[in-house]
């Protein structure tokens, strides 16, 4: 996976505006044009509470190498207007090196933004738009943004024209609008050193012309699910998970598959369990509140040993919480939320791109181990749109173990095997008849409350997970083999930590990073090995109580007492926060 070596390789642009101003459109087009021009990048959005037409900001980061997280601050904030910007201004950190560029008629710069010390400028976006046919202020501003970051004008024009073509705007008019904005940008750069410094690079990024994708994490996960073999999905709509299955739904038309919108979350997951019992790899997708409702049924999948993938996109909690914001706080419930002893698999993607592999792997693990596998994505990963290199296709050789020629009466669905995995008959197979059961049972599946049956089935369900060969995928490890400083993180927080590690190492620090992809079952020996020699340990996560920290302390022998760097969402962990700790250690 490509990564940063220096912050100077990237530029971060925020575009804000209230309902209908088109800030999000402008941000998307900027990202896409950057991708076409051979750069990489990432865009997320932040919105106000209004269902439609409220204030919104596009948060775009462009880069010369692959990027999966936000930077320390925004280099430039373009404000189409200032309305209600205080609702998410905390999510757009600015500094004295930043540039704020507001539309001339937007009024006074809000106090909180002025307080950042950023250079404050204005531009006549509205006025210019009035003079150009079909032009809107956001497109003019987009031209300016392109100029500021150093994106070739032509790339910008082509991208916008391709999009606006359906809306009846001509290439020529588009070109005029972009050019008008571009000129503003060039002038501002000429007049202000801070603005000139925004320019990412004259030439396009390193990967120009190569095979690039523009994809969101939820789409990536959908693709991973299809690659893994998922052909049945059931869900009840919930933000921010719905769009994962909204992406899959029409694609099932192409590859075969059934998607069922259920009456509630409990119905959805039981539909998936039924389909999987019938031999079709199945998935359900949800977020916090919906996950809570599915827990009883996940326990059934574990106890009855029916493969199942639970794709959970974390949002701010607790309770209904903050549906549109990201947080890493469904870790506890995913690890420990099943009543009784119900060992299962929990994996988490480490980047937008990694949503493909990690979801595919979850299907592989669920099918191979005949258990429930959680994928813990989050709102940031799921809804961020990224420019990535075309990802490799991985064939994991996923197969569900089935009996050959089971004999009626003799077939034991829950046989105690060496691996703990028992051949699973699929309805239709003659002689394989059995009753799947969430009551404790003996090897045949007949309910039993006897101590020895309970103990041996508990052993079996645990051993099959413990004994499995997870290979290298359990974690991403990088940095210096002889480092005395170790960092451990997971999920979407990996990107900023990775960036901090790269910066620290560029400054001569020796640092090692382990980003866990496999959270359950735990692999204490592997982590101990990966952290060998480490004398100081930093654990990074986006949570209030330190759920990940508690998890590490509970299940791993850590080489040093862990220090915790954490805060709740919606604010992302920034690379500089990590660097600050590392610096304080030297």
């Amino acid at each position, binding site marked *: 996976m490509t990564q940063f070596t220096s912050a100077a390789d990237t530029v971060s642009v925020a575009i804000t505006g209230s309902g209908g101003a088109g800030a999000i459109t402008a941000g998307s087009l900027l990202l896409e044009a950057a991708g076409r021009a051979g750069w990489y990048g990432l865009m997320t959005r932040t919105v106000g509470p209004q269902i439609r037409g409220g204030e919104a900001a596009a948060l775009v980061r462009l880069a010369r190498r692959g990027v999966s997280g936000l930077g320390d601050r925004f280099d430039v904030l373009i404000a189409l207007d200032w309305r209600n910007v205080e609702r998410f201004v905390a999510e757009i950190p600015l500094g004295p090196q930043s540039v704020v560029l507001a539309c001339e008629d937007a009024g006074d710069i809000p106090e909180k933004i002025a307080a950042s010390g950023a250079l404050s400028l204005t531009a006549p976006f509205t006025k210019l738009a009035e003079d150009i046919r079909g032009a809107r202020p956001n497109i003019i501003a987009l031209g300016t943004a392109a100029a500021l970051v150093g994106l070739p004008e032509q790339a910008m024009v082509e991208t916008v024209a391709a999009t606006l073509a359906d809306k009846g705007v001509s290439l020529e008019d588009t070109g005029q609008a972009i050019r008008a904005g571009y000129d503003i940008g060039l002038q501002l750069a000429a007049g202000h050193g801070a603005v000139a410094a925004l320019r990412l690079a004259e030439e396009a990024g390193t990967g120009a012309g190569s095979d690039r994708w523009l994809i969101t994490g939820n789409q990536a996960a959908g693709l991973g699910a299809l690659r893994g073999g998922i052909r*049945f999905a059931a869900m009840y709509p919930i933000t921010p998970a719905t769009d994962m299955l909204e992406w899959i739904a029409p694609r099932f038309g192409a590859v*075969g598959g*059934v998607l069922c919108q259920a009456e509630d979350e409990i119905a959805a997951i039981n539909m998936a369990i039924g389909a999987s019992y*019938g031999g*079709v790899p199945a998935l359900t997708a949800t977020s916090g509140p919906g996950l809570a409702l599915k827990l009883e049924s996940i326990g059934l999948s574990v106890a009855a040993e029916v493969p199942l993938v639970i794709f959970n996109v974390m949002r701010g909690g607790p309770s209904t919480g903050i549906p549109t914001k990201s947080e890493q706080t469904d870790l506890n419930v995913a690890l420990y939320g099943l009543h009784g002893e119900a060992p299962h698999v929990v994996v988490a993607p480490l980047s937008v791109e990694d949503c493909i592999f990690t979801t595919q792997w979850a299907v592989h693990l669920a099918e191979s181990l005949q258990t429930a596998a959680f994928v813990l994505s989050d709102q940031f990963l799921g809804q961020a749109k990224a420019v990535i290199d075309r990802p490799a296709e991985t064939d994991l050789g996923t197969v569900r173990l089935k009996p050959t020629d089971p004999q009626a009466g003799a077939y034991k669905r829950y046989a105690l095997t060496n691996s703990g995995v028992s051949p699973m008959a699929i309805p*239709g197979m003659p002689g394989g008849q*059995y009753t799947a059961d969430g009551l404790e049972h003996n090897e045949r599946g*007949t309910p039993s409350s006897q101590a020895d049956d309970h103990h041996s089935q508990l052993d079996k369900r645990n051993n099959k997970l413990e004994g499995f060969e997870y290979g290298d995928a359990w974690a991403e490890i990088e940095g210096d083999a002889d480092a005395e400083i170790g960092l451990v993180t997971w999920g979407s927080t990996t990107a900023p930590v990775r960036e901090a590690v790269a910066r620290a190492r560029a400054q001569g620090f020796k640092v090692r990073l382990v980003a866990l992809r496999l959270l359950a079952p735990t692999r204490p020996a592997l982590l101990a090995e990966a952290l060998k020699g480490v004398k100081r340990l930093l654990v990074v996560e986006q949570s209030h109580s330190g759920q990940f920290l508690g998890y590490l302390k509970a299940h791993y022998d850590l080489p040093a007492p862990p220090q915790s760097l954490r805060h709740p969402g919606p604010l992302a962990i920034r690379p500089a926060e990590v660097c600050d700790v590392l610096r304080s250690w030297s």
Partner: protein
Amino acid sequence: MDGLTPDFKFEPKHYKSDVNPIWCPGCGHYGVQAAINRAFAELQLDPAKVVVVSGIGCSSRIPAYTTCYGFHGLHGRALPLAIGLKLARPDLTVLVAGGDGDGFSIGGNHFLHACRRNVDLTYVVMDNEVYGMTKGQPSPTTGPDWDSELQPGGTGISAFRPLGVALQSGANFIARGFSGDLNGLTKLIVQGIKHPGFSFIHALSPCITFRPEEREWKNLTHSAGTGPTSEFNEASRRLAEDDGLTTGLVYVGDRRPYAPPVAPLVDTRTDLSQIVAEFRI
């Protein structure tokens, strides 16, 4: 079934497993089980191609007592599990069985939506107007005055009308049987399995332990005498006048069963290159 002579015929006993029911002697559920086995035999269904799905309750123990595939799932969740199974595997015969608590209390929402969804399943509810397995609490079909430990003096709530709700929710095959009337109940189950789409069979099935007065049902149940109607209003009128102990097939509609837009592919790797093309910038 393999290795069977060509003129082999399934008999009811071929559907009876060697697992001993946990039921109390005299429990009505024995009768329902017998009717299901007879119906399977009448239809000559291969047990390997039948799945009996249930929730939790005395009644819901049925799957393991058959020689078919079975799923003894969660309390109240048999219907969605069966729907997922049937959508994934339209080739199987799926029969769902359970109790009044399982189906109308905790499972009430799934019942509503299963009636609407009209997937080709047969749903047999073994109604004893009580929670048997948890030792005698009122269920939705229990009358308002029935005294119990948890609800001393009765619930004070009028009983749930399963057939009327099924009709309004879009069920297309609605019948009532009695576990003591083996022939009648068998016939309804056969018809239900044959009916395309969702069929709902309300099977009165006494709990002799917690509702011993239900032994009287053998004297009180009575056949409707008329055949089913396919008129919604007529069915509605009949159900409004129903005393709750009338047996027979009440309503058969002709809404077409739900068919998912695309059938799933089992064990097939598919080329995704078309799909990934959309991501290319």
